[in-house]
């Protein structure tokens, strides 16, 4: 690790530009590093073949630490050198490369890589197939990589399908093992934090996320709510905008069942019933109770169910199965002021709808059909809201996704 400045004492390997076995020319870019001061490319200090990489991408090491060896083609390294990748690769040695000599001792070996235990069977398999274990999702206890995970990884180069009750490791980034500095304190994960982390990492790993964005003129909906909220209040019900979004989304799901589905290797599983999960923010975290058969309820029924679910979620009295069985999820992040967000899909569903804050904004209305400037153009002030729909591109394509959101928009803009 080159010392790039007086006060720079460590750096992170951002990316290797060459792989072991590649031919490198002296001064040819070899890797990218990033430090707290500067991000830069490091040129090869010598010509030859890149024999072994000692510091994996994402690892941070002190300046002076050997990063890799460059040598002659076919040259074997005489002594095993520990790498930061957990896999014991073939034992090579040779002339240190990319190192600006200071302390050649590989201190990195003592750094935890965030994975507690690699079994002898797994390490033998990793060595034989030169697998970077950081890439292998573990399904054993505490995310341990088992032989089964290795077999699955070697067969598909991907994770085995994850059972709902099984958890993927959240320590999927090398940052999991970074040591604390004196300005930091560690807050151990609560079980909810851990669950959220696992779900989010797993979701991003499993489905390709795409987000489409619509804006909705909420005038008709606001008018309806203003006209009815008092009558609801006399029945003890708090009529929220969320209720309207639930109604519109549930109807759109019933009309576009392809969205109300999930992906499996053998096909797309469509649900005949619409069970809508609604994200509820808690003090430390988030919970998603499910409103069952949301498409079969009227506004009053939805308002009541929402009142109950949010109260129970906040008081911690939700039934054990209240968060189970959702077929689609909605998150009204607008309630905390956010204009637009790109939420992460709640697995195994096909999509999630994000709702932004309703704010008055100037918009152009025109009686003219043409997009050209016209005397009929007028700037008006309307309560506007962004809807962002994040979907699993394995299940849906853009046009279909847009028709679904358009259906929601249309209902909200024409509410009577």
């Amino acid at each position, binding site marked *: 690790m080159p010392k790039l400045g007086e006060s720079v004492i460590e750096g992170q390997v951002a990316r290797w530009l060459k792989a072991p076995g590649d031919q490198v020319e002296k001064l040819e870019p070899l890797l990218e590093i990033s430090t707290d001061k500067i991000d830069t490319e490091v040129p090869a200090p010598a010509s030859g073949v890149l024999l072994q990489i000692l510091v994996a991408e994402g690892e941070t090491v002190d300046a002076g630490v050997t990063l890799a060896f460059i040598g002659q083609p076919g040259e074997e390294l005489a002594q095993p050198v520990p790498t930061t990748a957990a896999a014991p690769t073939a034992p090579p040695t040779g002339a240190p490369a990319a190192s600006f000599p200071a302390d050649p001792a590989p201190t990195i070996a003592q750094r935890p890589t965030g994975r507690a*235990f690699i*079994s*002898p*069977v*797994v390490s*033998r*398999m990793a060595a*034989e197939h030169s697998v970077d274990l950081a890439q292998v999702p573990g399904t*054993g*206890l*505490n995310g341990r990589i*088992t*032989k089964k995970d290795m077999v699955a990884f070697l067969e598909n180069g991907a994770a085995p399908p994850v*059972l709902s*009750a*099984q*958890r993927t490791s959240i320590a999927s980034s090398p940052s999991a093992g970074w040591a604390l500095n004196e300005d930091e304190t560690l807050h151990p994960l609560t*079980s909810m934090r851990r*669950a959220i982390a696992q779900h989010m990492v797993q979701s991003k790993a499993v489905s390709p996320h795409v987000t489409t964005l619509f804006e909705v003129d909420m005038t008709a909906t606001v008018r309806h709510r203003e006209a009815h909220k008092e009558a609801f209040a006399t029945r003890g019900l708090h009529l929220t905008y969320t209720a309207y979004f639930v109604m519109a989304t549930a109807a759109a799901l019933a009309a576009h069942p392809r969205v109300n589905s999930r992906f499996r290797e053998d096909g797309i599983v469509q649900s005949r019933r619409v069970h809508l999960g609604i994200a509820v923010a808690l003090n430390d975290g988030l919970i998603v*109770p*499910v409103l*069952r058969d949301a498409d079969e309820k009227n506004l009053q029924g939805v308002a009541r*169910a929402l009142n*109950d*679910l949010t109260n*129970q979620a906040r008081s911690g009295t939700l*039934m*054990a*199965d*209240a*968060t*189970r*069985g959702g077929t689609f999820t909605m998150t009204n992040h607008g309630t905390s002021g956010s204009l637009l967000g790109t939420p992460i899909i709640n697995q195994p569903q096909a999509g999630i709808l994000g709702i932004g804050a309703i704010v008055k904004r100037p918009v152009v209305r025109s009686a003219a059909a043409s997009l050209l400037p016209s005397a009929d153009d007028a700037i008006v002030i309307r309560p506007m809201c962004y809807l962002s729909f994040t979907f699993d591109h394995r299940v849906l394509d853009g046009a279909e996704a847009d028709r679904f959101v358009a259906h929601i928009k249309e209902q909200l803009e024409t509410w009577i």
Partner: protein
Amino acid sequence: MAEHNYDYDVLVLGSGPGGYVAAIRAAQLGLKTAIVERENLGGVCLNWGCIPKKSLLHNAEVLETLLEAEDFGFTFENLQVDFGSAIKRSLGVVSRQTKGVAFLMRKNKIDVLEGQGVFQDPHTIEVTPAEINPDAPARTVSAANIIIATGGRARPLPGVEFDGERVLQYRHAMRLAEKPESLIVIGAGAIGMELGYFYSTYGTKLTVVELLDRVLPNEDPEVSSEVAKAFKAKGINLLTGVRTEAVEVSDSGVTVTVRNMQDDSTSSVEAAKVLVAINIVPNTENLGLEAAGVQTDERGYVKVDAVMRTNVPHIYSIGDCTGKMPLAHVASAMGITAAETIADVETLPIPDEKYKFMPRCTYCKPEVASMGMTEAQAKEAGYEVNVGKFPFLPNGKAQALGVKSGFVKIVADAKYGEILGAHMVGPDVTELLPELSLAQFMEITPAEIARTVHAHPTLSEVIMEAAHAVEGHPIHM
């Protein structure tokens, strides 16, 4: 759900080692839990199976030691053997164990509902009074999740009823008033061999009848023959490879007619009593499973997935009534997975291929312990294997004990060293197995076991030697 208002988060049907462990785990995870039981707490295992049996077998071991005392330089005359005390001692152990379960239920605030439970609908169980407490009130309880852990009972021979007098099942055999002069055991599985060993040691003239061609037919063939040798040395008559054709009961005893599967000849054996130990049937009829919509297979076992869910998502099933593997520790492991799944915390699912790695023990003498595949099964599954086998005979501790037979056999994958199976017969091998179970679970190979220093002189050194043998170089051979 908002509109639901159940009495409990989790209701467990049956308090065997599956049910009571599931209930405790659920309660630990903050779920409001109840358990329904029509007999004593603890199920077959604590009342009629593992626990009283282990107590009886220890009596037999003590007796055997006394009978062999001369080898150690003790002679005495007039040894009095009271059979009734053995049964009485076992009942004392049972009573302490079931009280322990009652204590655990109280400690974990689990409601115990005495009576017979029957589904009325997928969330509701009707509990009607049963013999355990005929005065208990009938009641109806509802739960968000239900775990079926109703276990099983002895399977009768077709057309032959258990009468408790001449034709026995394990419940009878566990509590006889006197030792029978002679006994025929049908079925040479673990239960038949264990109870047979007990009675034979107490002086009963024993015949064991087995359809397959060897005793303990689920074990490695070499293990079976080692046990057969020891049983024959005790004067036990072993009839293997014979089908039971008829059981006739008379005033004086029973006559069992068997057909030799090889030459088709028939013969008959007579004894005072016959014990039928041929597997179990699940307790799943009369349970209202239809009302709940829960599916069973054609033999009546409840079908479950790797996290013990039935076809009805909020109904789970564990233990003997699922037909996965009728062992107490398996039922408990399944119970923990079910409870953790309900509570939605991290759990370890048990897919079908994991059951073969569950420990299997037979507590007769010599003891048998195994897990995983035999050499033949591993080859059939497509593995290239290394097998390491080491006898107890040269082991110092075994010699001190006077043990001359038995061995440890480890089957490992030749390529990556994964332990595929372990098969042991000999002194205390049931206590030695966990080292290999842990190694298998953590995917440790024989190389690490061989390099782990084992204390001397202990029986566990034989495991270390067998591990060396897998690597090709046992030390003391």
